């Protein structure tokens, strides 16, 4: 048992953090709600009690998976590039602009739009990457700034050049039907995007753990001096990790427009990039775990919306819980005392075993 705990310590620690978060939320619901049992049921079971809500969980998870994988690839190289939000926003805007101004059959159209969006995102990741790799400028600050630039640039493009003036609010022209991503489950809005998201997560996993470049990214992230001495081109790795990150975020933004809204309708930044940071932390930068983390986060979100709608507890409960979960996961000293004790106990046991053999 204790050996098991040591082997899977980080995973167990993550699960405990999640558990603490869920327990705190249950306590909060009991403190606030006048009908706690009913509220709790809405929160925990709400998403699976109706088909449309369950579908919501998967719809919402799709862009979060994209952004989570995007952030994870940069984080694995220890690049704190939080520019997924900006890459997603601008890629969706430029992709939309391209989609409404071109006409071609469905399949090539969809592919070309995704290529445009992906390239936009890649370019957006390239800038902080180069600034960091060549001159050591903080990618955190530059990517934060790039988020704002992307936001204003995207809004300018849509509101000034591709705005649908017949619509009563600020949205882009509708995407032609050829640019829509098909739905896969009738009666819901679940579209091909979720399959693409999972495919990209799997590709991301293969890339990080089964290719040379992936190995170089992880080595650079673990110790860039060691990587340099080991002959890894750290400059290339730092740039590449952020380019790939931006590209995947770009796909995420565009699939959301092509699959759900069918036009660009964001006047505020949608926040998927920050959700990506959350799931990357919960999933410990592992693309496959990120799929589950995104589904978990999405489930919590939908549950909280049900809670907000049906009971007397605001949905921001989730923001509080996810913050607690994240801070516990990132706090490396959290439970380290426990691990230390088990390790010591194991060691003394082994020692005793060795002596008895001797």
């Amino acid at each position, binding site marked *: 048992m204790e050996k098991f705990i040591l082997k899977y310590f980080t995973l167990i620690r993550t699960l405990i953090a999640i558990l603490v978060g869920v327990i705190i939320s249950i306590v909060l619901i009991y403190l*606030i709600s006048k009908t706690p049992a009913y509220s709790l049921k809405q929160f925990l079971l709400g998403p699976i009690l109706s088909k449309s809500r369950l579908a919501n969980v998967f719809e919402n998870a799709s862009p979060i998976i994209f952004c989570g994988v995007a952030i994870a690839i940069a984080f694995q190289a220890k690049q*704190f590039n*939080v520019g997924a939000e900006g890459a997603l926003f601008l890629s969706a805007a430029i992709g939309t602009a391209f989609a409404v101004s071109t006409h071609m059959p469905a399949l090539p159209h969809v592919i070309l739009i995704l290529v445009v969006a992906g390239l936009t995102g890649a370019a957006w990741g390239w*800038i902080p990457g180069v*600034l960091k790799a060549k*001159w*050591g*400028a*903080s990618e*955190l*600050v*530059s990517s*934060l*700034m*790039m988020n*704002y*630039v992307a936001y*204003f*640039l995207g*809004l*300018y493009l849509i*509101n*000034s050049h591709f705005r649908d003036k017949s619509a009563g609010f600020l949205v882009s022209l509708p995407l032609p039907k050829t640019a829509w991503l098909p739905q896969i489950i009738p009666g819901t809005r679940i579209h091909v995007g979720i399959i693409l998201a999972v495919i990209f997560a799997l590709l991301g996993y293969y890339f990080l753990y089964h290719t040379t470049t992936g190995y170089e990214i992880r080595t650079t992230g673990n110790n860039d001096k060691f990587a340099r001495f080991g002959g890894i081109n750290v400059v290339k790795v730092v740039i590449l990790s952020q380019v790939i990150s931006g590209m995947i975020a770009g796909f995420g933004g565009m699939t959301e427009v092509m699959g759900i809204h069918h036009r660009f309708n964001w006047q505020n930044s949608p926040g998927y990039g*920050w959700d990506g*940071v*959350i799931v990357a*932390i919960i999933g410990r930068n592992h693309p496959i775990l990120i799929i589950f983390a995104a589904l978990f986060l999405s489930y919590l979100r939908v549950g909280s919306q049900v809670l*907000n709608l049906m009971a007397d507890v*605001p949905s*921001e*409960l*989730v*923001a*509080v819980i*996810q*913050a*607690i979960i*994240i*801070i516990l996961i*990132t*706090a*490396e*000293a*959290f439970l380290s005392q426990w691990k230390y004790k088990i390790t010591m106990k194991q060691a003394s046991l082994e020692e005793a075993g060795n002596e008895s053999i001797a």
Partner: protein
Amino acid sequence: MSPLLKSIFSTGFGFAILRVMTPILLPALGVAISELAGSVNIALEGIMLMSAFFGVIVSTFTGSIWLSLLAGITAGVATGGILAYFHLKLKADIILAAIALNMFASGFTIFMLYLFTGDKGSTSSLKSLVFPEIQIPILKSIPVLGPIFSGHNIMTYIALLAVPFFYVLVFKTPLGLRIRAVGQNPNAAESVGINVNRIKVYALLLSGLFGAFGGLYLSMGYVSWFSRDMTAGRGFIAIAASTLGGNMPMGMFWSSLLFGFVNSFAIYIASLDIPSELIQMIPYLITIIALALFAMRKQMKKKRVDEAHELYSEDVISSVVKDISAADE
């Protein structure tokens, strides 16, 4: 004169710049003080929200402006303290911990707002007292200068006074010296007996203090209520302002003024049907360029020092290094 130019050369516009600058300059000083101690603090967004919220809550329930001030400051400093605790004691990465804190502050304040007002709508807000506006005796009667510089909320003057305060704190006090020592070389600081972690804690608490004033200004000066996510990214803009200002007091004053100018300008031209997005983008672009230039300069300096190390023996190095830094000054 066109209406645009007329409004820009009005005193009202000058007044607006200082007004918009205040909630950027204060958190920018907060970002800078922790940056100088070597910790990147991106939690100013959360710090400001917490202060803005607790100031308003206390003002609603006690009706006392002094208690509100105290509550806001406590909330901001405490949030800085929580960040310090998780980062230095529990060894969390400071960036990720700050992201979590921002998220927490946003969720927590909306959550509490709902409990106090019972309103789930996005427009829910809580009314509040405001800090007084100050008419400066002689200045107010001077034409042009008077309408621009007099009659501001007291927090605007606190922000302006915070600049020399920051200078004195960082460059003229033992604490400031320690903060800079820890930021520049923690190992060297430790070797002369400075408790590195304690200094970093002080810097993060100070960071919370500056942020607290910024947050209080937002809810109890800029407007007179608390509404959800009312910081609207100013905590991040503050990072841009402190970067652009090179973490130096006057530099940050000018960069915050630039952000104040651009944002006021964007508000003014929004009514004239000119796309304001491109104008609003400019300060961020300038920040990225400045960031790149700073980094480039730093690296070139380092390269020259490294070359000096290769070329000369140990005893001449120090004099060469001295020459180079003298030339850079």
